[in-house]
Structures are given as C-alpha cells and as structure tokens.
C-alpha cells in the first residue's frame, strides 16, 4: 500500500540543519494498522506528512499504491485524495458548517453531485455519532466532536489509507475515548491506518505493528506484544519506562 525507501527529510533554517527523517524504509500493507511512537521531535509528524506529500522529500522514495511521490511528474492532488489525514488541531474549515466541511472536497475534488455528497456526508456523520450537528459550525462543537468530524471529512473522500497525527493530543481527557473508539471501529473495518500517538493503550489494543522512531531514525519495529514486552533497543526501553 505505502512503501518508503530511504526516506529523508532535512530542514535547513537559520544556519541549522535538522535531519527530521533520516533514512526510513518501511512497508505498510493493505489493511494494516501501524502505530508510530517516539519522543517529541523525533520526526514522527514529518514522516507522516511525507506519506501524503505535505512535505517535499529531500531524498528517498515514497510509493503510494505503486506511484512514486518523489517523481516530479506525479500529480500530488491525485495521491492526496486517496490518503486521508487527521491532524492534532482538527483543522476543520471554520467558515463552513459541519455538513459543508464534508461536502466541499467531495464536490470539488471527487466531482460528486451535491445530493450524493450530502448523502455520503450524512452516513459518515451518523457513523462517527454526530448526525445531529450537521448544521452547526465547528466552533460550536467540543474538541472531541470536532475531531470526529475531521475523521468523517477525511473518510468522505473514500481514502485507501488514513494518516493520524496525534489525533487525541489536543483533547481534554474525557473526550479522548470517543475519538479512539471511532478509530478502533475503522481499524476493525479493515482500514489501512498509520497513527502517530502517545496512547499506548490504543497501540497495544489495535496496532498490528509498532514503529519506534528517535532522531529521525526507525529504531525498532515489531508487533505490540514484542515491542511492549521485550523491546531490544536501549532507547526504546528508556522511552517505554518514561511513558508507561
């Protein structure tokens, strides 16, 4: 589904060079749920953003469904509509109602008719449990509700993969559960997912595979059982001791 080969992203700014992603090779298979964890600043977000071309690569390759994002001829917009993304800060469109948030890209990008787009939007709102809020504006929703709308908005494009960048980090603790529940349901339905999160419970319960990153490098990789119970690398052990 998504393959990265020696993926590299270097930020240069104010005389500093940051190797945010430093040679990562991974293969995310169809239907797999991959959880990415690691200390702050280890390059998890940057890695994720490379997967849908929000960051231009410094080196290496990202293949989405066999298409290379590093190739200049690749139409990024075509790739992005197949790769849904959910952000820490929700990033809903504040000037549009909940329903319009879900309808807009369907019509403009997928060229769906309004009737079809609204039907799809309502189904998804139903699914994430906020059907009654379709005429509200994002500012009138709680954080948890906003994030569920954001997930529904990404799903409305019928993506083949969903990327989540710390989807629960900006939420009040009592709202984390409702968002994780939606994500678990997606995972059960067989959605391919790459999730950056600090929710170790979620990783244990749902992940097929855990990637541990530090200083832009993929340090350790394995099933949750393997990773949480007998990690091999010193840095992974240290990290787990801090978060668990």
């Amino acid at each position: 589904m998504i393959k990265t080969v020696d993926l590299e992203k270097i930020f240069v700014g104010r005389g500093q060079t940051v190797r945010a992603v430093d040679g990562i090779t991974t293969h995310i298979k169809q239907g797999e749920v991959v959880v990415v964890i690691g200390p702050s600043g280890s390059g998890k977000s940057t890695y994720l953003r490379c997967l849908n071309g929000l960051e231009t690569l410094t080196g290496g390759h990202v293949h989405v469904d066999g298409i290379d994002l590093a190739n200049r001829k690749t139409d990024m917009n075509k790739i992005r509509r197949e790769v849904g993304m959910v952000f820490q800060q929700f990033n809903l469109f504040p000037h549009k109602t909940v329903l319009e948030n879900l309808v807009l890209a369907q019509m403009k990008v997928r060229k769906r008719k309004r009737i079809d787009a609204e039907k799809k939007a309502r189904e998804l709102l139903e699914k994430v449990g906020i059907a009654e809020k379709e005429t509200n504006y994002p500012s009138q929703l709680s954080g948890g509700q906003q994030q569920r709308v954001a997930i529904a908005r990404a799903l409305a494009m019928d993506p083949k993969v969903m990327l989540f960048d710390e989807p629960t980090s900006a939420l009040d603790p009592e709202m984390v559960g409702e968002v994780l529940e939606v994500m678990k349901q997606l995972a059960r339905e067989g959605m391919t997912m790459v999730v950056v999160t600090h929710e170790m419970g979620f990783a244990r319960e749902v992940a097929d595979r855990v990637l541990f990153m530090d200083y832009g490098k993929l340090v350790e990789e394995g099933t949750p059982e393997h990773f949480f119970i007998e990690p091999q690398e010193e840095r992974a052990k240290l990290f787990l001791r801090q978060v668990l």
Partner: protein
Amino acid sequence: MNTKNWLWWLLTILVLLGIVLGLWVATKRIDYTWRWNRVPQYFFYQDKDVKKTVIDGTVTKIEQKGKTSIITVHNSDNEDNVFIVDTETVNLDVDDYLMEDDTVGAILDWKAGPLVTGLWVTLWISALASIIGLVIGVVTGLCRVSKNLTLRQLSITYIELIRGTPLLVQLFIFYFFLGTVLDIGRLASGIFALAIFAGAYVAEIIRAGIQSIPKGQMEAARSLGMNVPQAMIYIILPQAFKRTLPPLAGQFISLIKDSSLVSVIAITDLTKSGREVITSTFAVFEIWFVVAFLYLILTFSLSQVVAWVERRLAVSD
C-alpha cells in the same frame, strides 16, 4: 451605572452646543451673513422651458389635458401652431392676440443641481475605483504571498512605489503623463489613479489576511486533494476576507474621501461642484459645510453596510 449615564450624555451635548455657539459668535464678529436659503436650489431646481411664438397670431383653442394644455395659435401666415405646455404656466384666453416673441407657456421640470450631480460623480468614481482597486489588490496580495520570486518582487515594488508617494502627485502623473501617452481621458485617469492607489493598500491588507489564516487550513485542504487555487478560493480567501473586512472598509472609506482630490484634474465631483457653486453664491461657509455633510453621508452609509455584512458573516464564530 446606567442612571449616571444621562449626566454624561448631557455633558456631551452641552460641549457640542458650546462649540457650535462659539463658532456662531465667531462668524457674527466677522459680519458673515448666513444664506442657507440659497443652498437648496443647488440640490434641485425647477427648470423652465419657455415656449414663445415665432410670428404674430391669435389663440384659437386651449385644450386642457390634466396638467398639460395644448394651445393652438393661428398665425398671420394662416397656419396653426400647436404648443404643449404645463397648465399652471398658461396665462391666456381664447382670442388673445399674441405678438412675435410673446410667451405662450412653459414646461416645468425638476432638475438635479450641481451638488447632486457632483455627489453622484463622487459616488460612482469611488465605487468604480473601489472595485478595480479590490481586484488589483487581491491579485497583488496573492502575488505577494506566492512562491514565485519575480511575482513577489514585482508586487513589492508596486506597493512601495504607491505607498511612498502622495496621491496628489500620482494623480498628476496619471493625468499629465499617462493620460497623454496612453491617450485616456481625465475621468479614466482619475479613476485608475484612485484604483491603483487603493490597490496597493488593499494588497497589504489581503496579504496580512491570508497570512493570518493558520497553516493547518491550507494543509487540510491540500490533504483532501484540493489544488492550490481551489484551496485559496474555497478555504483561505473566504476566511481572509472575513478578517480583512474591517480594514478593507476603512480603506474604501478613505478612498471616498481621497476621491475629492480628482477635482484638481477638473473632474466635476462633489468637491469641484462645491467650489463652482461658491463662485456664484458666495455662500462659502454653508456650501463647504454641506459638502462635508454629503461626504459624511457616503462614508457613514458604507460603514453601516459593512457592519451589516460583518454581522451576517459572524454566524460561524
């Protein structure tokens, strides 16, 4: 607190009255005679189109049809001349004898005076310049934040040139230089000068507006597969527009006021009309007060419209 407010209200009114009284006393001391009664005719006046006979003749028929009368005069050449005039101006009976050049009647017509036509000119010049200025400003603002270095540099050059020179000088350059070289009239010169002046300020407002939208909005739009123009049109610009509405309104209100400068290139706007009226009435104080008041009506109406639009847009807050 509310109970005490009326005292402050009273104070405000007293202070304002005091100022007006002071001005009135001041004009008394220089022996200025106020002639407010001369002012209304420069808003609207009754035009009298007088109909006269060309050769002698006798009135043979007066036919009244509502407010107009049809008068037939049989002249000495044995022909019938028919006049259509307003009834109230007719002072004739059948068989009256009319000499050459005698008045039969007149057609009365209310016409807009110079203050109204001037106000109208100011209004549409400002409106047109605002629209063109908005287009120029949005395009320049987009260039200003574009990735292309040349576009950025060109837009900065334009903005700095316009903001660094006085509008009056720009008007002269447009009128005397560009007007001559490109062979465009004074009206076009004036409108374009105003539009390009406003455009530079609008561009900066638009740039600030676009940059004030969180980066996540563009990223969310792009990650849904929208291309940059789509993201701009549907996501960024509508939000930026809402945020920039108050400063944009301020800019267009300035434009209405600045448009008074076009009077120096002999466009008969409100200001120039005012000057012309003064040369025939000598009611200097009255006319300038009236002109100021008319500008105030324009700017106040615009700010009311904008406030209304703002309230409409505030539903998503």
